[in-house]
């Protein structure tokens, strides 16, 4: 096993908000009828719980995010992905589902600081003050798909890996000193 390298190798930028590329994080896309009984049981065994619509539920190093009525995003330590996929396969052997490792298909950013919300407000058509606690919002950051949620005094934003450089460029432009709204 070779060391995984995140898309931007941990680039950061300090403007009126602080931007950091983090990761790699383990991520699994799980498509399944969320009402299936084996799903809840399996996830529970793997230390995840099924989130409500548009929510992300965090338990220690593990989060489960609601992506669509039949899709969850599981976030976990990178090294635990294989075991978790195996656990899902075992628990859902008789349940129609699809679980795939997408850890390397994503780039993850932290946006921190008192005015972190302003950085997102410049890029995403989202009414941020109305973002509920623990809400995972899938949207657009300028011209690419993105998802974000608020936690620990900032925001975590996920994009596709191939556009990580573009997203970093957007965040840098938006967080530039002097451009506070």
């Amino acid at each position, binding site marked *: *096993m*070779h*060391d*995984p*390298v*995140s*898309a931007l190798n941990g680039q950061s930028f300090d403007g009126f908000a602080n931007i950091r590329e983090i990761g*790699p994080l383990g991520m699994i*896309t799980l*498509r*399944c009828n969320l009402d299936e009984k084996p799903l809840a049981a399996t996830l529970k065994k793997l230390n995840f719980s099924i989130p409500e619509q548009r929510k992300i539920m965090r338990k220690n190093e593990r989060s489960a995010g609601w992506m669509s009525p*039949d899709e969850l995003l599981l976030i976990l330590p990178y090294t635990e992905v294989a075991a978790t996929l195996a656990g899902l396969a075992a628990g859902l052997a008789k349940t*129609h*589902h*699809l679980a*795939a*490792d*997408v*850890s*390397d*298909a*994503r780039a993850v950013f932290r946006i921190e600081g008192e005015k972190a919300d*302003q950085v997102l*407000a*410049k*890029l*995403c*058509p*989202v*009414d941020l*003050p*109305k973002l509920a606690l623990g809400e995972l919002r899938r949207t657009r950051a*300028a*011209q*690419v798909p993105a998802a974000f949620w608020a936690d620990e005094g900032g925001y975590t934003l996920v994009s*596709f*890996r*191939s*556009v*990580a*450089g*573009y997203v970093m*460029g*957007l965040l840098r*432009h*938006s967080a*530039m*000193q*002097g*451009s506070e*709204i």
Partner: protein
Amino acid sequence: MSTRLATGGRLIDRSTRAEFTFNGKRMIGHEGDTLASALLANDQMLVGRSFKYHRPRGIIAAGPEEPNALVNLGRSDRMEPNQRATTTELFAGLEAASQNHWPSLEFDIGVVNNYIARFLPAGFYYKTFMQPRAAWKHVFEPIIRHSAGLGSAPKEPDADRYEYVYAFCDVLIIGGGIAGLQAALTQGQAGKRVLLIEQTAHWGGRAPVDGDTVENEHAGEWVTSAIDALKTMKNVTLRNRCMGAGVYDHGYVLANERVADHTPGDGRPKQRVWRIRAGHIITATGAIERPLSFAGNDIPGVMLAASLRDYVVNFAISPGDRTVVVTNNDDAYLTAIALVEAGLSVPAILDARPQADGDLPNRARALGIRVEQGRGIASVKGGKRVTGVQVCLQAGEGAVMEEIACDAVAMSGGWSPVVHLWSHCGGKLTWSDHLSAFVPDPDRPPRNHDGSAMVSCVGAAAGTYRVEDIVTAAVATDVIQSNDAENTPAIPPIWVMPQGAPIGLRARMWLDYQNDVKVSDVQLAAREGYESVEHTKRYTTLGMATDQGKLSNINGLAVLSQALGAEIPQVGTTTFRPPYTPVTIGALAGESRGEIFQPLRRTPMHEWHDKSGAYWEPVGLWRRPYCYPRNGESHAQAVEREVLNTREKLGLLDASTLGKIIVKGPDAGRFLDMLYTNMMSNLAVGKCRYGLVCNEQGFLSDDGVVARIDEDTWLCHTTSGGADRIHGWMEDWLQCEWWDWKVYTANVTEQYAQIAVVGPNARKLLEKIGGMDVSKEALPFMQWADGTLGGFSVRAYRISFSGELSYEIAVPASQGAAFWEMLHREGAAFGAMPYGTEGLHVLRAEKGFIMIGDESDGTVTPLDLGLAWAVSKKKTDFLGKRGMERSHLADPERWQLVGLETLDGSVIPDGSYAVAAGQNENGQRNTEGRVTSTYYSPTLKKGIAMGLVQNGPDRMGEVVEMNKVDGSTVQARIVDPVFFDKAGEKQNA
């Protein structure tokens, strides 16, 4: 002359000094000045030249309605043409220059047009310049082009940056005058999330200038306490220097904030575009004063009365020593009073009304000002500056009764509510005879997404001019629009002054100052049948200038309706289009410039390619190496080397951009049988199969290799550009048509870096780095296996797009770069070299493999491409099957895929057609085919091509004529499209 008064000026800070230049001349102003007020303080009334006749133009207004004072601001990478001086805040170091003249503002050769103006009426160019035919393009048009235009084009890229911001609110209030502030107070107190924006740097609008009293307080004080109160409300956001530019459907409003226009180069974004989504919009945008149409009303020194008052009160400007006021309403008396109170002279107020006995006229009389009723101006005297006015009876034909010497004229023809934002999205207007103006019709508002009224208007924007009425209306929490014009004193219609003015005078009455449209022009348009206001506007260019008719539209419409003998509402009004005032294009482009102009998709090996000198090719949003030139090679030489090296030794290709979609579920096989033209359900686990995807029309849309992963899982490869499209296509059918089928898909394209290891030495390299059995027996052609290679966990596919022994190896993207580098390191001994997309194309063309986008173009079926073997005849249905059965697609005479080889070995030009005898009925040469891919084959040392030829496969060996753009042709023989290793010995090795 115009000058700065010794005292006063509510907006300027006399303790500051801002030095600036105009046409290179050094001038001094104060903080708080606009460029226009600072110019007037320096006696610079003449600021530009008009569009058509190049007549001298002075400052006429004090706000965004200004049609004349457009200057070139700044220079080099901060140069900005057509900047409106009246809305430009002065700053130290500002450089402005006037426009549209040569050689100078004072002496402009273009003014010759003024002397022949009689020969250049509205639309004259439609009636002449037709002979000789070529003269329009070569003589007349260049002359017209050079005399038109205003400022000149910037030459350098913009030094500034811009950004967007999204904002959401329950109520957006546009305009920070008394009406807007009161509406904000009301809505804020009601707990609504309020955003209040104001285009200027100041709150309060006209009321403080006019000395109004609001709720028993002086307007200025009321504004201060209103702002203080609003600032304490957490649910209210205030933003000045922020103009409401456009109202769009579903509560979307575009606003433009001038963040650093007045502090250029301070590191902040120059402007910020607000994309606001509002539950409801209240426009409190005020009203704009209208000029009066009298002869010579365009001579510098003639100004709008309220604007002139703005200069006196806000900026302590004396626009002239002696100002004649001419009006049809009471408001202009305030100007006369302000002038007299500032110690200036008002020789007369000429009031067109037969009687003026309201409070203001009486106050003016009490101050000793001469008030003449029923009078107007017959003509203004002067050239580059007013020198006097000739007085006449408004009811007459312009006989001069008296001449009054003066150096300024303050005119008021009444007010037009600013209904632009109300109208942008379909709000309708109604004509008020009482106000002689269009006002918003509250019964026909623009509608929101739920059908509710989306916009309401308060204050002068609704035709409510009295402060007490404004406050009452804005206090109403249910946002009912006020339209109680009846309280306001009537404004009689005075459209032409004097009423019976002969043509000689009418030809000197300007309606549109910038575009030089006069009363006589509109009358001419009416006479010639351009009766719709849209026709007149376009025929005369009325209202088409950079002020978009803010001053001219109503006056022009009125003149038109009189000429047609119709009522104004019957003639109608023109459509209001966004933006309210022009918006910088860079601001509208937002952050999307340079590096972040568009997303650039990078594979995990992107940096390696870049460092290795890749010449890039955009493929969708991806960028792929086209080739890797070495030591001064041309691109063609690099491609040739890469192809030969791959054929002879070992080539490495970054194939990560290929789409990879997992399709899983009990119905996945059945689904893929619908999606692909061939069978996928019967593919054995561990095996790969090439498949074709068609649209419902039956035209080829994508292709790729499908691998069966396990009993209910398939992995579908798509083209680089096709990943998202095909994934979306799958989801479309699964969600909208076959929603009861148990199938899930996941697009995992970016999870993997995929590398093609290609060439006779491919296996040797993989065996050297070791880990899994890649022998012919363990991993034969068109199979895949999971394993490890050099310590990387991989999935290896034995597939080939080159005809060589080839493995496509997928590793997690986070390890892609490391794996790629290892292959190069370990492969050096086997002659490993990277190859790019052009090498890939040549290699596949030598093998006769089709390329989506080359052989297919959206009008080609699999059968056209000789791919009948991949179109199932067994399946009762698949996407595209019915489409292919249509008569034209099933026509046996269609053009079909063949190889083409020139007789002289040359390369057929890209895009060449095979010509056939004769011409069609439209005189076009008949054709019988075309080339789809054409390359020099380094392997075969000659030109090779694929093409579509009518009945091609039945015509092997025939020679066709391929056209060249110079009219000649090149002869090419129809051959098998597989030029190299037809038996497939190399790829199967």
